[in-house]
């Protein structure tokens, strides 16, 4: 049985496809593993019943929107101007997804008309590592959501616990669970989380001394196998050629070694300044469990504390790096 939100998503998707308002609806469908939805692409009205939405729907889908529109544009490169077509993409968007779309729009990647936002109120998604801990590392054979509870089955039997205990870190302090822009809302808005302790993670980390901080960073980066899942899932990582893939000049070595891993991650993270919406997708897709969030959240922290800016929240407020104010703080700029 579809839940209320799912029913609304499906009805709206059916309408958009039937009336040919959009070419494709990007959403989530049931996956092949317990409590893990898969991104899906619906192009026919009769397929809309595949769409689902619950806490098993994880990654930010805005990257697909960008890829679909840009790919389509590229495919039109040799089409006569009068025959050119535009691609319109509908997307199931929670708060973070909509913020990524705002960033795309601010950065002039596509037009507002290219995207139809089916907004969903979001209660957060399941963090795979926390879920694995609940199963004591055993394989989860089956799992389901039961209201605000999660029920899993392992070889040791069934267990039940509150969803809250396995929600991703990003979701636990999320101030924008509802889309910041949308064309349709599939359900009642939910209350934002209290955000007093949003930066507790950053403050705890910053309170350590330099050596401790570096040791932690080093240990985390050493786990990286350079599969680039973090970069590839990130909606803000859309450069046609990533610096990590360039060979002339070669900005970063291709091998797995401590310094090249660190350089790759540091450079990627700095590109996220004022552009990271803390959706947690990079953390969720990482097969090695690298803690990227502690460092990305620091950028978010600086974005707020220094520039009073939150990434992708307001279409009229571009990131500090893309705008100029005479009174921008600059204490951190060191004299040579």
């Amino acid at each position, binding site marked *: 049985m579809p839940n209320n939100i799912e029913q609304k998503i499906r009805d709206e998707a059916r309408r958009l496809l039937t009336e040919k308002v959009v070419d494709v609806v990007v959403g989530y469908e049931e996956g092949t*593993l317990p409590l893990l939805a898969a991104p899906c692409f619906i192009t026919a009205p009769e397929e809309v019943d595949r769409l689902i939405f619950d806490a098993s729907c994880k990654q930010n889908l805005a990257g697909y929107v960008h890829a679909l529109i840009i790919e389509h544009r590229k495919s039109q490169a040799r089409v006569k101007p009068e025959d050119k077509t535009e691609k319109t993409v509908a997307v199931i968007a929670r708060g973070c997804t909509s913020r990524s779309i705002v960033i795309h729009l601010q950065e002039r990647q596509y037009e507002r008309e290219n995207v139809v936002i089916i907004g969903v109120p979001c209660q957060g998604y399941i963090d795979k590592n926390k879920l694995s801990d609940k199963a004591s590392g055993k394989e989860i054979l089956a799992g389901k959501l039961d209201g605000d509870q999660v029920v899993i089955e392992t070889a040791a039997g069934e267990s039940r616990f509150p969803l809250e205990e396995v929600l991703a870190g990003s979701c636990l302090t999320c101030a924008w669970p509802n889309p910041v822009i949308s064309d349709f809302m599939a359900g009642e808005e939910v209350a934002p989380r209290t955000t007093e302790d949003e930066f507790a993670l950053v403050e705890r980390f910053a309170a350590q001394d330099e050596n401790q901080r570096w040791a932690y960073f080093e240990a985390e980066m050493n786990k990286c196998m350079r599969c680039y*899942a973090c970069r*590839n899932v990130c909606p803000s990582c859309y450069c046609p050629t990533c610096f990590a893939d360039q060979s002339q000049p070669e900005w970063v070595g291709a091998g797995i070694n401590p310094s090249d891993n660190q350089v790759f991650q540091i450079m990627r993270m700095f590109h996220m300044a004022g552009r990271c919406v803390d959706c947690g997708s990079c953390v969720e897709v990482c097969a090695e469990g690298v803690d990227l969030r502690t460092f990305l959240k620091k950028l978010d922290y600086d974005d707020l504390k220094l520039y009073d800016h939150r990434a992708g929240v307001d279409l009229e407020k571009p990131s500090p790096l893309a705008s100029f104010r005479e009174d921008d703080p600059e204490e951190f700029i060191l004299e040579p």
Partner: protein
Amino acid sequence: MKAKLIDKTALAGVVGGLAAKMPVYAPVRDGRRVYFRFLAAEDEACLDYGNSDNAPKNLFFPHTETLMRFTRTARGHELVEDEAANQDQEMVLFGVRPCDVRSFTLLDYVFDQEKYTDPYYVERRKRTVIVALACLQPPASTCFCTSVGGHPAQADGADIMITEVGEQYLVEFLSEKGEKLAEFFGQLPEADAKTLARKEELVENAVAAIKTEIPGAMIKDWLDKNFEHPFWDQIHQSCLGCGTCTYLCPTCHCFDIRDELEGDQGIRLRTWDTCMYALYTQETSGHNPRPSQKQRWRQRLMHKFKYFVDNFREISCVGCGRCVINCPVNIDIRKLVSDIGRLMEAEEESNG
């Protein structure tokens, strides 16, 4: 072949004894995960694991490997002699699951053939003794070794096979290389006929416990004929183009070679490559024969279930399930292969 019995509690000591004498590459628990790595003094091999998170292929074919060093001089580039440390030292790969053991047989086809021999791989392979650990329970419900020509207790390629039988381990020395390690196991009683029969029974149960079945060997016929098929238009759509599946795959073996310079000191580096990357097969001219993820995904499936079979008569998938478990967007190779199976059935039906 000798078959001996060892107490369960004694096996850890054997691993410790080996590690004191030579490098031992074994599963080690690290937080939530289990990785194959060289045992350090403080490490303890993890013997009650399902399967490791990384594939043990790293030992023979590491992600990053320096092939040679050179110096840039006024006269051109000069090779720097590498000190060949421990080049002939024996190593032990301990506790490998049968699917991963099978991956070495498949990798041998590529790296150790008459025409092309990869000295780096072959050299490490030659001096490594492989101690396998049979699966009496499938490590995960995503396991499907029996669908791709494997078996939860298959011993081909292993030098020693260890099978848990009740309160003891049955240790079978399968090769000369394996027998050379016998001294580390101490004086052990011979396994009696009853234990050997019990093992057979357990292995049969293990086979029955694998629930996932895919038409792994059947789809080649379809792949032969359907390079252009609408099927390929769908499967790659959600793919992020990351390297998770191929980097964790025990049989994926594509690599890239590049030179990296620091001042005048250079290294020639070999790193893993993956058909999932946009740079894969990108040519210097800018042309890419596999310009989108569609062609790259077709390459991945075709390589495993057709090209490798054409070349070496084996499927290049051992059914370990690592790509299934770790794909961030749940692209499930079991589903893709089964979908092709269903397409074949449908086509057969419509052809009468």
